[in-house]
């Protein structure tokens, strides 16, 4: 597990909040879309927060999953144009996918939550399975 004192997880994924809330600062935006999360992260990066994880984590396409979690720093450090560029590219990448007009069933939603959760766990070196076993 990486030292997460400076981690702030920006997410709309309830599973991340439930499993990781105890260990990291999690800011949960229940109503936010995938894109909203990217935009929130962008604004934080603009405000000199460090971007710790790549916002397009996972090969699950942005119009496929509604869930997104990104780790940034709790407090501003120094503005990094490289990070600003990454998040900008991510928003652009998001926009090129067409909405699919699908209503996801609950099991599929849970699977997408799980994938997003495990990706973030991998990034911060957190034992995903252990986190899951605690909530069940």
């Amino acid at each position, binding site marked *: 597990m990486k030292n997460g004192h400076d981690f702030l997880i920006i997410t709309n994924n309830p599973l991340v909040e439930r499993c990781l809330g105890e260990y990291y600062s999690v800011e949960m935006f229940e109503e936010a879309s995938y894109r909203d999360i990217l935009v929130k992260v962008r604004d934080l990066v603009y405000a000199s927060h460090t971007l710790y994880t*790549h916002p397009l984590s*996972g090969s699950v*396409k942005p119009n*496929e999953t509604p869930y997104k979690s990104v780790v940034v720093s709790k407090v501003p450090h120094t503005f990094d144009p490289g990070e600003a560029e990454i998040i900008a590219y991510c928003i652009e990448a998001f926009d090129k*996918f067409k909405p699919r007009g699908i209503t996801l069933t609950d099991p599929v939603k849970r*699977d997408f939550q799980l994938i997003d959760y495990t990706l973030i766990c*991998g990034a*911060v070196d957190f034992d995903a*399975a252990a986190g*899951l076993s605690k909530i069940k």
Partner: protein
Amino acid sequence: MKLELGFIEIKDIQFSNECKVENGTLFVDAEAVKAFVYEDDDVKAYVKSACFDIAKPGESVRITPVKDVIEPRVKVEGPGGQFPGVIAKVDTVGSGRTHVLRGMAIVTAGKIVGFQEGIIDMSGPGAEYTPFSKLNNLVMVCEPVEGVHQHDYERAVRIAGLRAATFVGELGRNVTPDEVQSFETYGIKEGIEKFPTLPRVAYVHMLQSQGLLHDTYVYGVDAKRTLTTILYPTETMDGAIISGNCVSACDKNTTYHHQNNPVVADLFEQHGKTLNYVCNIITNENVYLADKQRSSDWSAKLCRLLDLDGVIVSQEGFGNPDTDLIMNTKKIEQMGVKTTIITDEYAGQDGKSQSLADADPLADAVVTGGNANEVIVLPPMEKVIGTLNYVDVIAGGHAGSLREDGSIEAELQVITGATNEMGFNRLSAR
């Protein structure tokens, strides 16, 4: 290190009550394969059922959702065995002799998660896009036991596929190959002495390593936990790298892709003629930005340390690997080592969007595997192995993708291997 591959051409597969390879036909007893697959504890615990079917080129068959594709092989001489660190013990592979059942594959199929993707059509327009339509496929459709965790189940199915391939590969042990080829790269000094005038070239092989359903294993080690390192190209050819990646069907590298890595093959073809093929550098694609930074720093450092003149860089997957690709390329170029990179594109359905999620002017030599967003229509097939239940939900599908007559309108990304980023296919875009 020198590896001999003995190719046994498989032209047909038939179910039988015995298991053997005879005159280019694989006779296989499904129950025997299944019994061997089920000797593994994880498979026993998590896989409720495994059913076998056969799909041949030209048949009106659709296989979906596809998890992995694996070529059956067997080590007949020299150290190690198939899939070291996973099935065989962890001994170093890449030397001696390995028999390959060429022209066939084991395909694992069935749901892992609710958006399980990957379509292989054995005929029709879709077949043009996937290399696996040209193979005789022994398909194993798996079902999970109730309530199993997805990560446990993914591992179980991964192992099940590798075990099935191991079992079938073993049938080639005592068969005389139709063709034998040998492959050898040399130590640093030896290589320079042998080919003093040829440019020193390596292959920077990026491995998907982001997490559940996004992993690759090297000698059984999760690539996410590796530092950029060096392999003999023959190790890759001999099963050192396997796929645990189930996401982004069109540009994920299946185990078959790793075993038959086309960059390795095409560099070997020029080895000693126009270039000196030095080694493979494997590097990961992690989510954590500092990991990306470190891994790409190490790729560049190793390129310099090995005094390379040029490298080919291939990537895997959609989105953030573009950042790794560009970081690698930029840093390697800045070391004075020339790069050519292989990627695919997400340029939108209309082809007008920016294709990659990152860019740099130093990436001036790019080979593309095509636009994964391009829309195709796949006609109905007479037989479906697996299930069409997920077609609307998978990446590239949309509400109504699966039409009433069984045809599918979706983006190219639904097809397994369609826009492979190792350059496995002829598909491209301009």
